[in-house]
C-alpha cells in the first residue's frame, strides 16, 4: 500500500526540512553568506524577499501541504494515476511557496500560474463528467484572472520600468504623490484586485469555487480551501497595500468583504451537499478577512490575518471530515446521511469542533479572530465600520445555523438502514484531522500564540 504513495516523501521530507531554514539563516548571517546568481543584484536581478507576512503564509502552506499529503495516502488509495496526483500536488505547493516568497512581481505571476494550472488539473483528476466540467470552468475563469494580473504587471512595468516589488513600491508611491493621479493607476489596481479576487472567490467572481470544490478529491478541496485562497489573499494584500497604501482602498475592501460574507453565508444556508456548503462558507469567511484588513487599522489587519490563519486550519479540517464521510459512505449529499455520530464518533467530534470554530463559538480559534475583527470595527469609530461589525456578528450566527443543520443531518437523528455498517475513518485520515482540531482549541484558548504570528505580518504591510 505504501509504495504507490511513496511520492509523499518528496513532499513531507522537504517541508519538514524547511524548519531547518532558520538555523541555516543564522549560520549564513554569521558568515556573511549571500547567494546571487549571474551577478545581478535587485532591482535588476530576481530575488527572494522574506518578511513577517510571507513567512506567515509560507508556514500555512507548508503545514497544510504536509497534512494534506498524509491525508491523501488513504483518501486517494482507490484512485489510479497517483504519480500524476502527487506531482500536481507538489506543483501546487511549489507555486504557492513561490508566490509567497518571491520579491519579483513577474515571478509572482509565473508561480501563480504554476499553482493555478496544477490546481485545474487536480480538480479534474477523477476524470468523470462532473470533475472535468468543474475543471474546465475553473480553468477558463482562473485564466481570465491570471490574464488580469499579467495585464496589471505589464501596465506597472510600462509605468515605472521595474519588476522588483520593493522598487515598484517606491516608484509608484512617488507617482501617487503627484496630482492629478495618472489614469493608469486605478486601472492597474483594478486588474490586480479582480485577478486575485477571482482566486479568493470574492463575490461576484466566486461562482467557479463551489463546483470546483465539490468535484475535486476531498484532499484537494482541503488544499485549495486552505492554501490557494490564502495565497490569493496574500498576493492581493501585498500588491494593493504595498503599492497603493491601505487607507485609500480600505473602504472598498470593507464593502467587498461585506458582500462576500453575506452572499456566501446565504448561499451556504440552502445547500444540500456538504462540500458545497463548506465551499460557500469558505467564501463567507473570506469576507471576514477582507473586512478585517479593510478596517486598515493595526487591530483590524491583525484580526483579518489571524482569521486567515484560523480559516485555513478549520476549513481544511472540515473538508477532511467531509472526505472521511465520502470515503466511508460514498456521498456528501446530506439528505442521504444521518445518525453517523454512532458509527463515526471521532469524525463527528472533529467536525463539531471545526463547525463551532468556524461559527465563532468560544473557546475555539474562530471566536478569537472574529472578536479581534469586531473590536477593530468598533474602535475604528466610523458609521460604516459600526454597521459592518453588526452585519458580521449576524452572519456569524447564520454560520452557526447552517453548521448546526449540517451536524444534525449528518451525525444526529435517525440512521438510515444502509448506513448501519459504516465504520470510523482510518487512523491515517484521522491523524491530520486531530492535529487541526487540536490547533482549533489551542489557538482559541491561547490566542496570543496566533497574534504573535500575525503581528510581524501586519507590520510588514506597513499599516500602523
Amino acid at each position, binding site marked *: 500500500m505504501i509504495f504507490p504513495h511513496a511520492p509523499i516523501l518528496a513532499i513531507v521530507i522537504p517541508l519538514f526540512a524547511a524548519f531547518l531554514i532558520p538555523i541555516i539563516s543564522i549560520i549564513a548571517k554569521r558568515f556573511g553568506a549571500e547567494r546571487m546568481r549571474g551577478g545581478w543584484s535587485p532591482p535588476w536581478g530576481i530575488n527572494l524577499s522574506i518578511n513577517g507576512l510571507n513567512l506567515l503564509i509560507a508556514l500555512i502552506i507548508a503545514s497544510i501541504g504536509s497534512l494534506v499529503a498524509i491525508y491523501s495516502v488513504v483518501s486517494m488509495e482507490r484512485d489510479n494515476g497517483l504519480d500524476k496526483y502527487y506531482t500536481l500536488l507538489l506543483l501546487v505547493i511549489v507555486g504557492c511557496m513561490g508566490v509567497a516568497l518571491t520579491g519579483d512581481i513577474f515571478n509572482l505571476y509565473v508561480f501563480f500560474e504554476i499553482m493555478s494550472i496544477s490546481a485545474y488539473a487536480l480538480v479534474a483528476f477523477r476524470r468523470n463528467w462532473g470533475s472535468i466540467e468543474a475543471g474546465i470552468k475553473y480553468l477558463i*475563469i482562473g485564466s481570465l484572472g491570471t490574464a488580469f494580473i499579467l495585464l496589471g504587471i505589464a501596465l506597472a512595468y510600462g509605468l515605472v520600468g521595474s519588476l522588483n516589488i520593493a522598487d515598484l513600491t517606491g516608484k509608484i508611491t512617488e507617482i501617487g504623490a503627484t496630482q492629478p493621479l495618472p489614469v493608469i493607476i486605478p486601472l492597474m489596481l483594478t486588474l490586480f484586485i479582480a485577478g486575485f479576487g477571482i482566486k479568493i472567490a470574492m463575490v461576484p*467572481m466566486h461562482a467557479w469555487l463551489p463546483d470546483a470544490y465539490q468535484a475535486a478529491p476531498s484532499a484537494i478541496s482541503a488544499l485549495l480551501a486552505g492554501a490557494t485562497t490564502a495565497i490569493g489573499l496574500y498576493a492581493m494584500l501585498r500588491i494593493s497595500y504595498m503599492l497603493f497604501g491601505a487607507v*485609500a482602498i480600505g473602504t472598498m475592501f470593507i464593502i467587498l468583504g461585506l458582500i462576500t460574507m453575506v452572499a456566501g453565508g*446565504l448561499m451556504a444556508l440552502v445547500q444540500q451537499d456538504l462540500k458545497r456548503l463548506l465551499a460557500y462558507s469558505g467564501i463567507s469567511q473570506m469576507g471576514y478577512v477582507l473586512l478585517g484588513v479593510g478596517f486598515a487599522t493595526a487591530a483590524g489587519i491583525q484580526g483579518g490575518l489571524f482569521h486567515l490563519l484560523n480559516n485555513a486550519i478549520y476549513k481544511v479540517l472540515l473538508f477532511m471530515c467531509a472526505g472521511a464521510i465520502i470515503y466511508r459512505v460514498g456521498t456528501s449529499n*446530506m439528505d442521504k446521511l444521518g445518525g453517523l455520530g454512532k458509527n463515526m464518533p471521532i469524525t463527528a467530534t472533529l467536525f463539531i469542533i471545526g463547525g463551532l470554530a468556524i461559527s465563532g463559538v468560544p473557546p475555539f480559534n474562530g471566536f478569537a479572530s472574529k472578536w479581534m475583527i469586531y473590536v477593530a470595527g468598533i474602535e475604528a469609530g466610523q458609521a460604516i465600520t459600526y454597521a459592518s461589525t453588526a452585519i458580521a456578528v449576524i452572519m456569524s450566527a447564520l454560520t452557526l445555523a447552517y453548521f448546526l443543520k449540517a451536524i444534525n443531518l449528518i451525525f444526529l437523528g*435517525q440512521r438510515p438502514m444502509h448506513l448501519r455498517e459504516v465504520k470510523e475513518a482510518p487512523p491515517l485520515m484521522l491523524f491530520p484531522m486531530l492535529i487541526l482540531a487540536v490547533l482549533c482549541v489551542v489557538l482559541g484558548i*491561547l490566542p496570543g500564540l496566533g497574534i504573535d504570528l500575525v503581528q510581524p505580518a501586519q507590520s510588514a504591510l506597513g499599516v500602523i
Partner: protein
Amino acid sequence: MEFGPGIWGPIAATVLMLLGAIIGYLVLIISRRYIVPKPSSEKLKTYACGEELKPEEAHFDSEHFYSAVRRVFKPFYKYVQPKHSGILSTYLLWVVIGFFIVLIAVTLSLR
C-alpha cells in the same frame, strides 16, 4: 484580550464553560434518576400525516431547515440563487460585472 472597559480571558472562560457543562451533565443524570420517562407506544411513533414509517426511514430533509430565514431573504433566493446555475457564460458575465464594480470602487477610493 482587552476591549474598552471589558476583557476576554480565554482560559478563565474555557474553565467556566467546562464547569457549566459538568454541572449541566450532573443535573441531567440526577434528574433522570428521579423522573423516569414512560412514553406510550403511540408517543414513540413517527407522525407522518397518518402514514406508517419506520424510525430509520424518517429523515428530516435539508429543504425544511430555516424556511423562515429564506422568507426574510426572499429577493436574494429568488434572483441571486438561480444565477448559480453552473452555466459558464453566466459565471463569466459575473466576473465582468465584478471587474466593473471593482473599477468604480477603486476610482472612487483613489479620487
